[in-house]
């Protein structure tokens, strides 16, 4: 995964709270052995009508929202299952960042591993951003700041390691494997019988 240090985009708004991973990608689309191609099923049951045509009222189907890379979502986004298919589907849909006042633990973890930045702001700030979804937001990963065109600056918390990984495209598996001597020592110490 290549690193990146900034995101510039207008936003798509989903006001619903507690959007769970079964809404993000329903279980019937998990029978795949691939990571790719899940974007077409992202928010499947909200996005497509029973006859397979797009639901015109759903945010991601609206023409002005096409190509937008930031999702502003209601509180407790991504709760539910540990399926990494959820961030795979959202990244495949073209999203680069999710902004909410609370983002579920496992989903947040999974997102960071797939170049999808979870940003937690105060509820009032998320609400304020939702008022102006057409503004091009500027997310500066190095500074951990989200900036609006009218000059407001929202700092957000981001683990230092996660920040480095995103910016430099650090590969976590490689990082762990580089700790092999420590792992060997641990096993020798704890599993000697």
């Amino acid at each position, binding site marked *: 995964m290549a690193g990146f240090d900034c995101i510039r985009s207008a936003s798509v708004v989903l006001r619903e709270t*507690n959007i769970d991973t*079964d809404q993000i990608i329903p279980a019937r689309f*998990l029978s795949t052995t691939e990571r790719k191609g899940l974007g077409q099923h992202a928010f499947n049951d909200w996005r497509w009508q029973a006859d397979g045509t797009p639901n015109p009222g759903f945010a991601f189907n609206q023409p002005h929202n096409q190509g937008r890379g930031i999702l502003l979502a209601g509180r407790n986004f991504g*709760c539910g299952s*540990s399926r*990494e298919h959820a961030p795979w589907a959202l990244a495949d849909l073209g999203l680069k960042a999710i902004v909410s006042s609370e983002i579920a633990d*496992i989903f947040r*973890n999974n997102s960071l591993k797939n170049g999808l930045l979870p940003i937690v702001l105060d509820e009032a700030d998320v609400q304020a951003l939702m008022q102006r979804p057409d503004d091009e937001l500027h997310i500066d990963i190095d500074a951990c700041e989200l900036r609006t065109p009218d000059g407001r600056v929202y700092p957000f918390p981001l683990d230092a390691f996660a920040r480095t990984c995103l910016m430099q495209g650090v590969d976590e598996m490689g990082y762990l494997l580089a*700790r092999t001597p420590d*792992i060997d020592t641990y096993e020798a110490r704890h599993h000697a019988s």
Partner: protein
Amino acid sequence: MSSVESQPPRTLFDKLWDNHVVVPESDSAPAVLYVDLHLIHEVTSPQAFTELKARGLKPRRPDRTKATMDHSTPTLPAGADGKLAYSSAAAENQVDTLARNCAEYGIELFDMQSESRGIVHVIAPELGFTQPGMTIVCGDSHTSTHGAFGALAFGIGTSEVGHVLASQCLLQRKARTMAITVEGELAAGVGAKDVILHIIGVIGVNGGTGHVIEYRGSTIRAMDMEQRMTLCNMSIEAGARAGMVAPDEVTYQWLARAPRAPKGEAFTAARAQWAQLRSDEGARFDVEVAIDAADIRPTLTWGTHPGTAIAVDAPIPAANDAAAQKGLEYMQFKSGHALEGTPVDVVFVGSCTNGRLSDMREVAQVLDQRRVHPRVRMLVVPGSEQVKRQAEAEGIDAIIRAAGAEWREPGCSMCIAMNGDLVAPGQLAVSTSNRNFEGRQGPGSRTLLASPLSAAWAAVNGRVSDPRRIPMQTQEVA
């Protein structure tokens, strides 16, 4: 071992964490945490193996990895041709892919022919792979179940499944701690499922986010292992990273019978270690919650997340925000009405929450000499081959069939509706599983989460019913 003189009191979670740190965490990097037991299943592992292969790696400790197939597997027996009816070619391919990966790397697999196969969170405790003091992970959020044994057990994503395969380790930031203390005796007709639904109703569907919960108090101590598993299983539904109960005599007795737990002297030695696994007197938790068992009534959910839990005879609350309104509309319910009396189309008993032997027994007790209401389709799905065998040895399958319910082969089934076992659009299901999200049990399905007693009693009456009103039957001698 090092001396522990001036060490401050530690929680059970602190002890488990300390014991598994390979490289401590710092400001710039998370800890490297060792994983004792890695469980895998067909849905969340294939992409991890692909990644491993692409890098020319092999699993570091295939001996610490155990595999089963449960999510995509059919719950109807094989046809006359010996073939299983998979819901799709993709589902069958997933199962085959797991078998190939396990064969290639020497990972023990409980496959469709195995007498020990079943839902991952049912079989690992049953076989005794799950032990106190361990770190246990699986690409599955209900891994929290194993915390019932005093293990640190949590769900991970598929990238992390790859990390554990490659290194037997994970990158982790230490979670915060939450103590939930439940004191007192539970009323008749109220069980572990009602306790955990009540707790989630109290702390909220995100009340545990960032925390590891330790369940404590006399009510928890009085629970058997299966009840403690039901409790810990749903910790994730409150957003918690994990849930745990300190091991005690009840835990040791379970493990003494489990085939793959330590035996003989090894068991005695392990037991002495396990006895250290409790929060020290005076240990500090970041959050403490007290629950009075007397406040817990049979509890179900009315909405589209597990935090919408209310007592069976309580009114559905007023919708005070857009989300609650949307939940009410989806469920076709009205504020102010009680759930009790609501007509039911489907009853599902099973899943890693309530698919164990004690759950099957409770259901059989209710269905014995009774009939499932003609309006209701009822599916009873044992959590494992062992649960199925034991239940059948006790005649439970006969009671369930005689009542007009379906007795199926083990698997996740209607809990996640990946294998073709579905609730039809618009139908209302009372389910002993753990998630009532929109469409969880099939597109358009509406789900009320409930205990096995509530589910079985609803099946008999064709309506949501209060299990405290189940007439007591005198024990019959077979």
